């Protein structure tokens, strides 16, 4: 049947129709100042990343770490998801990069409105979760979620999924060949001679 990637489709749909400007109206001078500070720092880059500025990298890294957190098992941080994001936005992807920057700005704006902080990465984990929960149904969240998960589960050659950590997490062994039995039910089927 059709080989569909519904998640990607919703990613593109959601990010392709982003409204101009912020979805939160900025009203207070303190918030404006916080956002402006974040904005100024967005473009500085001391070559930690190929494309992202240092602060963009720091922010996206923090977001990715909440989407796939490090708990009893490794998460986006250990898989190097941020390096995937940096790498895939490097290669002639101005449009996608612009969407990511917009998403980042909106997440920072929400952080500012809720916690009066310039940076998402300055918040505590519970505060970060609160910001992301509030934005869960937006295209901005969809954009960063998509990239985080793609970085966790795509081939390591793209920069993420270091040591195939993502694959291990879900029990996927990237072997090139298998032989039956593959699972419990077909083993049982063979045992019973069905």
């Amino acid at each position, binding site marked *: 049947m059709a080989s569909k990637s519904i*998640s990607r489709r919703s990613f593109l749909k959601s990010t392709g129709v982003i409204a101009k400007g912020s979805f939160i109206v900025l009203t207070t001078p303190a918030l404006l100042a916080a956002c402006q500070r974040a904005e100024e720092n967005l473009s500085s880059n001391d070559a930690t990343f190929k494309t992202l500025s240092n602060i963009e990298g720091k922010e996206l890294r923090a977001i990715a770490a909440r989407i796939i957190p490090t708990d009893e098992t490794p998460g986006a941080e250990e898989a190097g998801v941020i390096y995937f994001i940096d790498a895939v936005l490097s290669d002639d992807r101005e449009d996608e990069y612009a969407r990511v920057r917009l998403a980042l700005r909106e997440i920072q704006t929400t952080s500012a409105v809720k916690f009066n902080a310039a940076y998402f990465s300055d918040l505590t984990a519970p505060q970060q979760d609160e910001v992301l929960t509030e934005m869960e149904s937006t295209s901005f969240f969809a954009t960063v979620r998509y990239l985080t*998960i793609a970085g966790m589960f795509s081939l390591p050659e793209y920069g993420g999924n270091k040591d195939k950590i993502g694959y291990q997490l879900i*029990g996927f062994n990237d072997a*090139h060949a298998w032989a039956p039995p*593959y699972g*419990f039910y077909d083993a049982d089927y063979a045992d019973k001679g069905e």
Partner: protein
Amino acid sequence: MAQAPFSTREQVDFVVIGSGAAGGIMAKELSSAGFSVVVLEQGPHLKAGDFKHDEWGYDHNENLAWGARQGHPQTFRKSESDVAELSPRAALGYAHNVGGSSVHFSGNFWRLREIDFIEASVKGSIAGTNFVDWPITYADIEPYYTKVDWEVGVSGLQGPWDPPRSRQYPCPPMPIKSPGVLLERAAKQLGLNPYPAPVAILSQPHNGRPGCIHCGFCNGFGCEVNAKSSSMATMMPIALATGNCELRTGCTVHRIDTDEAGNASQVIYWDEDGVEHAQMARAVVLSANGAETPRLLLLSESAQHPDGLANSSGYVGKNLMFNGYSSVAGLFDEEVNGHKSIPATRVVHDFYELSGELGFYGGGGIDSRHLSRGTPMGFALGGSHFGGPKWGSEYKRNLEREFTHSAAFDGHTTSLPLASNNVSLDPDVADKWGRPALRCTYMDHPDDIATMKFFYDKSLELMEAAGAISTTGFYPQNGQDGNVHLLGTCRMGNDPESSVVNKFNRAHDVPNLFMVDGSSMVTSGRGQPTMTIMALAFRAADNIIQAANRGEL
């Protein structure tokens, strides 16, 4: 006769446009019969060693299917009264490479049955649709289905509902997977008749190719060992070995010219560097798929053919059929590991024809699959699949369990042919060559949606009978916005006023032009059209060779 390579100013016997499921067979058959053949293919000649388990490359970057990123935007609308909008992903999906979509398809290979060819006269016509019988019967095509089985390579076992076959499958069925066991046991409980899925994937070595190694990356991926029976792996090597066939990759055809007598005379195309060429030929075989074939005919308009080439009927591009679908997933106690091996190992075809008493036309089949194709990135993007958060620690826990413990039962169903579902030229959007983009207009007929719902409900019943702890599912109740089955857009028929090609795929209007691909199909079948596309190609080639040998070309 001259040997390949040929000069463009030399009149070759055939130009074949497209090297996919049908084009590969045409190239192989015509060149093996001693004719000179030039194959023009838009994409590159990727081979087994080029393919990887690369979800990001194929799904996000569209390295095989190509889209707006590669300069091939498409537009979509549900109704002719809407303005079509740019599709986020090609609505009419197909691969740009030697072998076409037969390279990255899932390999499900159902034959059509006797009923498919005569269904309109058996069931009666349906108001507002172009539902008619085919000009051929199952008996006409059966020898060619068998030719596909053996020459291309199909694994399977004759099932209780299968139409008669003149020869058994060359390869035994693929080993059953856990989703197949779950479907088989559930179906038997419900008194149904599950059986092994026929697939164009080798279960054992055949024709010099190896058997499948069960890596699990079939649907959306190219086979890394040539066990999948694509045109690239099976037909093109034979065609090229004849010395009569020249394959030109990176070549995009934009026009078929006709001479004063109204015959196709040359094919105009751009090579990889954008240089325009004109290849002269005695006859032209258009196998560009159900989207690009009508587009090229429409682009080939002229004073002689003001509505597009071979379009006196007005049917070029019309009657587009996608096939419908439904998918139901279940979570199980024990390990399923559906990500290993091929997509489908069992089918249930008890609902091939739904009873008229239900109040709508339709039918289809159900097969056992893994959820989200079984590939990690796609699976994780869709999670949590059975309720629960879409991110965070609980999401991680859910993925851990769901990936290895879920199975899907997918429905594959009929689509009715409607004039209002079609492929046309977009008046506003252009591709990288400046040609009008493909515009798709499509809305499933209410009977098609009712059929999808029937299969969704039935799959849910089966999933519950299979013992799923939790279920989820989907069918496109508001209509599909794209598909990879591109059928019916140059339908075959005996009447030149209501069809584009005759029963041997020859254009009614242009005697030396043949349209051979999914566009010829009169009705949609129940999904899995590639087997029929290939059989029609073998049949068309047989007839073309006979006609040419009689001096009729």
